[in-house]
Every structure is written in C-alpha cells, then in structure tokens.
C-alpha cells in the first residue's frame, strides 16, 4: 500500500463530519484526566515524601537523659555523646541544643518558659550506619551504663506505622490511576463503537471499495486520539493548577511533615505527559475495537 493509501482517511476528514469537541467524550476525558492527574500526583508526592523522611530520620535513634539534676544531666549527656561518638555503627551524634528544646516546648509551655527551670531531658540525636540498627541492644546497654536513667527511642518505632500509612496511600493512589486508565479505555471503546454505528453506511461503502481495516480504523483512531489528547490536556492543566495552588497553601502552613510531601521535579514531567499517554492509550484501544468490529465484516 502506498503512503497516500495509508493516509487517505486523514486527508479526507469530511468523511466523518462529526466535528471534534462536538460530543461529550473530550469533556468526560478532561474530568477523568483531572482526577487521574490528582491521584498520580498524590501517589508521586507520597512516594517522594516517604523516601525523603526515610532518608532523613529512618536510621535515627534519640537518646533521652532523664535526670532532674541539671548538672548531673549535662555531665551524663556529654559522657553519653562521647561514648556514642566512638561506638561502632554510629555515623553521627548531635546533642539537641537548648534553644531547639525551647522551640519544641514553646507551643505547650509558652515563650516565657525556660528549659533551665524545668527538668527537661537532654536529647541526643544519633544516626546509625549500615548494620547499626542490629547493634541497637548493645548500644542501649552501653548508654544505660553511662546514664542509668537514659532512654533510647528508635524513630523506626513510630516511623514504621507512618511509613505503612504512606505506602497504603500510595497503593490507593496507584489503584485510582489504574481505575481511571480502565475508565478512559472504556470510554474510548464506547466512543469507537458509537462512531462505528453512526457512520456504518460510510464504512460499508469504503469497505466495498476495497478499503482495508487498517485504513478505516486509522480514520477513527486518529479522531478519537485527538479528542482524548484535547480532553487530557484540559484535565491535566486544571489538575496542575490545583496542585500549584494547594502547594502554595501547604507552604503557607509551614508544616515540615506536609512540606516533605512535595512533588519532585520528575512528577511534574509525568503529569505533563499524562495527556499524551492517554492519547496513545486511546489510539491503541480504538484501533483494537474498530478492527475487531470490522473483522466481523467479510
């Protein structure tokens, strides 16, 4: 078949006069793409946030020196920090400065409260290296040898359930994206069948003239893909706008936890590519649907 024969449908768009955007499909696709983009953004944001939190504090333990006597507490804190600096499996030791403790307590005790007047535990953040968590029992014993009242809190104890929640939400987002893809494919199938019914007589004439299934399918799939691309771009653009606005609101709150669930750069690229992926999906689904229908003709 010549190139002209492959393109005859595209050249003669008037064969099927139902204009683009005349039906509801592009707008249905726009709504679905909007929801798909939001679900995808949620999943990608949660994944990035989980990775960021895991990377920052996933291997962290906090040592609390619980001692009412401030002088003794400070001496024990220095000794424990010194011991931890030398301990195997520890990569970083950072005694939490008093002003940070004040900042932590301020929301509950007010700005006037001073840690010096309260029996606040001394805190030491300890980052563990590879295999460090396996040595945690020994580390805990060594700390309590220096400071008998010290407590070693593993961040993983509370981060685990939080990470599990994030993972569940990611799966939920992925499931929503999958459902939206299935719904988009179903919409394309319905649109293709509707077009075939509407233009059945023209298709029969083309068929009897010797048009191949591929030639006829190409005319429909091109139109459907363009409709999906238009709807997809509208939906994705709206979703991106909403995400930018929500990002602005989150930034205004100033929450570190919420802020950590920010969309990474590649996520924006993924969102921008969604309409094109949708168009490719529509092209393939329409092609299969139409060729199957035409295959029932002789």
């Amino acid at each position: 078949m010549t190139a002209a024969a492959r393109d005859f449908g595209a050249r003669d768009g008037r064969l099927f006069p139902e204009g683009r955007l005349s039906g509801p499909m592009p707008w249905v696709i726009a709504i679905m793409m909007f929801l798909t983009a939001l679900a995808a953004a949620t999943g990608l944001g949660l994944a990035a946030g989980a990775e960021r939190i895991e990377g920052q504090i996933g291997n962290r333990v906090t040592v609390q020196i619980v001692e009412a006597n401030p002088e003794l507490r400070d001496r024990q804190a220095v000794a424990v920090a010194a011991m931890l600096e030398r301990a195997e499996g520890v990569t970083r030791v950072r005694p939490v400065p008093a002003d940070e403790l004040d900042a932590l307590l301020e929301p509950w005790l007010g700005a006037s409260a001073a840690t010096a007047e309260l029996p606040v535990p001394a805190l030491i953040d300890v980052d563990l290296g590879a295999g460090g968590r396996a040595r945690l029992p020994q580390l805990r014993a060594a700390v309590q040898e220096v400071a008998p009242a010290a407590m070693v809190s593993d961040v993983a104890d509370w981060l685990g359930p939080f990470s599990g929640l994030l993972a569940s939400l990611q799966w939920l987002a992925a499931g929503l994206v999958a459902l939206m893809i299935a719904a988009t494919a179903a919409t394309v199938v319905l649109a293709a069948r509707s077009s075939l019914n509407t233009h059945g007589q023209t298709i029969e004439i083309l068929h009897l003239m010797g048009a191949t299934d591929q030639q006829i399918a190409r005319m429909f799939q091109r139109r459907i893909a363009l409709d999906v691309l238009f709807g997809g771009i509208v939906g994705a653009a709206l979703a991106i706008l909403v995400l930018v606005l929500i990002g602005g609101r989150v930034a205004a709150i100033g929450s570190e936890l919420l802020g950590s669930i920010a969309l990474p750069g590649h996520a924006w690229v993924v969102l921008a590519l969604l309409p094109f992926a949708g168009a490719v999906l529509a092209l393939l689904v329409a092609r299969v649907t139409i060729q199957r229908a035409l295959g029932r003709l002789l």
Partner: protein
Amino acid sequence: MPLVARDEGSRPPVTAPGPIVRFDNVGLRYGTGAETLSDLSFSLRTGGFYFLTGPSGAGKTSLLKLLYLALRPSRGLIRLFGEDIVTMPRGRLPGFRRRIGVVFQEFRLVPHLSAFDNVALPLRVAGVDERDIATPVNEMLAWVGLSDRASARPATLSGGEQQRVAIARAVIARPELLVADEPTGNVDPEMAKRLIHLFDALNKLGTTVIVATHDLHLLTSVPSAEMIRLDRGQLADPTGALRNPPRKVEAAGGAR
C-alpha cells in the same frame, strides 16, 4: 470515456483468459434458514453484458452480494478473476474489491461529501496521489453530465443525478467487473435509459457488466446483453448466456 490509469503494481497477477466469474454448485444460506440461493452453476465471460432478472425475493441481491464480495457462499465454489474467493484469506479481499465497481438502487453516496469527493473516493482508497485525482474525477463527472454539479452535496441532487454520481464513483477506478443492483429503480424511465447507456459505453471499453433489474423494457436497450433469470434462488438460462461459451457466441463462431 476518460479513465484513470490502473495501478498495476497493486493488483493481483493478470487474470488468465477465461470467464471472469465462475460459480460451481453455489448455495447461500442466511443463518439456519432455508437456502436463499441453491445449486448455482454458471460462468460470466470477460467483457459480457448481463441483465439479472427475476421476481422479488428470487435472490438477485444475494447473488450480487456474492459477486461484489459482501458475502461468502455457504457452499460451492466461486472463482473471480481466476481465483478461488471462497477460501481466499480475508486480507486479500480488499485488493479484489478494488477491481469491482458497485452501483446500488439507493445510490449509497456519502452524504457529507460533494459529488466530486464521492467520485474521488475509490481513487483515494486505492492510494492515488492527490495531485492525480482532480483530472480523472472532473472527466468522469463530465462523462455522466454533471460537471456543473461537482461541488453539490447528494441531498441537493436529483435521484438521476445521484445515481450518475454513483455510477461515476463505481467506474472511476476502471473496474474489471461492474455490478449494479436495481440501478434504475429510483429514477424516471428516461434517466433509466441514459444510465443503461452509460453501462453499455463502459462495457464497450471492456468492463464486464451485470445489472439486476425488474424493468423488462431495459432488457431491449442493450442489444448485445444476455439475460440471467433467478427464480426462488435457482437459475434459469433463457438466452443460454450462462453456458460457456454462450449459445450466440457458438452460433457466431467467435467472441462478441
């Protein structure tokens, strides 16, 4: 008559001399019902002009559908252009359909296309370059007397004009076989004669023509035509046309 050069490269090998159509014990059944066509055995010689007659429900349209490859028979053998089209893979049929022109009683023009674009369709389907379409289409419209209606949509054309557009569309790709199903059914008697003369002119250029009609007056309008009669799905052969070679060829001692 101006005709478009045939794209030989895209066609199957040239048919060997012999009948253009051959039916052997062909039967056609829709679903599980009784046979619509039974035990049809005949040949159509290349370059012949045939009228297919018979009462309503005799099976004329079904026979034509077998000829223009809209149906496959339930049994029997059909050879078209020298090849068995009953067992032919579906993917090869479009190439054969491009060698057949079809005219319908109800015209079946694409309503959203102009007369020009309707006539151009077979060329576009066959992949003729867009630059090579205007001249043959305009010439074909002139041949059917519709040069001044090239840009008209079918809805604005009379029945006779629509049928002439349909004929122009059917023959523009220079089909080897032209199949017309009651082409004069929706036009007045004068226009019917004009249409039959168009078929006759095409036939003189070598196209095998088969026209299904109820109109017995038309049978006399093409003196060289032979008649096939169908009755209740079975064949009658009143003029001996279907014997191969036909009786009149035998009598004349040569081809028509």
